[in-house]
């Protein structure tokens, strides 16, 4: 009780000071905006932003689902064989090193301005870290586990998905956390660069109109999306890879 009350109080004080500084004209209002401007933005464009947020979250959800499934599957299969992993791991690392934003204009040209291009860009941004982390997680398992499973009569497929994959869970979950963060970043970015809807789009749109209230509103909502996903991921981490949650 006390902790939340204290946080609320601190937030209220910060908001009050912020508004006061704005009213006193001490800071450039274009750069720093103000709580009253943000409140105004909520009244004027709240609904638009809410539906934009929903679209953004749908795009993120789709990209996450695809990247998780494809990335983990690929990583498990690639990590299963030592020689395969030796060749694929450096390739994945190199892919992660490329600033994937350079592919975005291509994706735009090929898929248009709609949500498809955002989802594809999101998947590309997240899939490589997920695959690489999964591969490493599977590779670093003690061969003793494989021997034990084989001794009990498991075939290759069963060893892979019933023994190794679960054991590699901490590494996989770490990859999922990283990949998801990158996906969210990619999707919001792509919306900002070129889009027809979504949080990023509306932030950009209002920037060109110098509506800082709306810009800050969009930013706050984006941070909210990131925070929510962070909480979800932490929950997943605790649930599926408790040793790692530190």
């Amino acid at each position: 009780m006390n902790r939340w009350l204290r946080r609320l109080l601190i937030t209220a004080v910060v908001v009050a000071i912020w508004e006061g500084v704005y009213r006193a004209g001490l800071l450039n209002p274009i750069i720093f905006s103000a709580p009253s401007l943000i409140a105004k933005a909520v009244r004027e464009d709240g609904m638009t932003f809410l539906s934009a947020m929903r679209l953004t979250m749908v795009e993120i959800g789709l990209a996450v689902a695809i990247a998780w499934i494809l990335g983990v599957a690929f990583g498990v299969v690639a990590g299963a064989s030592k020689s395969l992993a030796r060749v694929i791991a450096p390739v994945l690392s190199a892919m992660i090193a490329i600033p994937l934003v350079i592919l975005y204009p291509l994706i735009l040209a090929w898929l248009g301005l709609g949500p498809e291009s955002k989802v594809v860009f999101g998947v590309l941004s997240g899939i490589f870290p997920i695959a690489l982390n999964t591969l490493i997680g599977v590779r670093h398992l003690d061969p003793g586990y494989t021997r034990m499973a084989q001794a009990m009569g498991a075939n290759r497929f069963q060893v892979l998905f019933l023994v190794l994959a679960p054991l590699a869970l901490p590494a996989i979950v770490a990859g999922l956390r990283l990949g998801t963060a990158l996906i969210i970043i990619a999707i919001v970015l792509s919306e900002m660069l070129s889009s027809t809807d979504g949080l990023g789009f509306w932030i950009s749109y209002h920037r060109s109109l110098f509506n800082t209230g709306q810009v800050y509103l969009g930013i706050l909502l984006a941070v909210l999306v990131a925070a929510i996903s962070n909480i979800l991921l932490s929950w997943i981490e605790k649930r599926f890879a408790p040793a790692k949650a530190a």
Partner: protein
Amino acid sequence: MTQLLPRLAPALFLALVALVWETASRSGLADPDVLPPFSHVMGVLWGLVGSASFRADLGLTALEVAVAFVIVVPLGLIAGLYLGEKPQAYRLFSPLLNLLLSVPKSIFLPIFIFAFGIGFGQKVIYAVTLTFFIVMLTGIAAARSVPAGLVNMARAFGASKRQTYLEIYLPAMEPLIIEGARIGFIYTVTGVLIAEMYGSPRGIGRLMFAWGESFRMPELLASVVLVVILTVFVNELLRWLEDSRQTHRSRA
């Protein structure tokens, strides 16, 4: 040969991609208007590299990257080293840092533009802001990777605080410091390109975005190929450097 294979794998992969690309395009599997053949794109690239204005844009972007890199990598590493050394500070900052890293920093671009305009400085500041925290994270990992027992041993033999930093921490962290530089490079390039695409009169990012909008696929693809080659090359170089400094460092 098998020793070299992991090293060469990225290059071989890219060559494979080029091959598939060329075949798909020439055979009509992919629409050649949408995906012109690799060979044609390489020709266009050659022309671009010859053009002075393209080189000027490339040079500008490279300069922005260089300046941002030189600022953020030492800053981030030192901040990380300092925090990593103190377990209490680390526990305090760690959750905040994780949250910070998961927030899409591109959403702050409008504020950056309001505050700093769309010139050279803004690109550098944005790239530095984007890269700082992740480099700091590497610095923290580097400091924490130094075993306390090693530092204790040095103290037992009379090392001063300064000597522990120079003789123990720095050499022990060398591979991770190079790793920090490598990650710093990736993120500074990303940051500069994003800022250029979002709002900039000049630079490779701006060019690529404009080409994309006007559907000039050969030029766009050519510049993509160029950036990919350059970044993968630098990345592999730094990775090779890091690995070469890794010899005789495993704590057996």
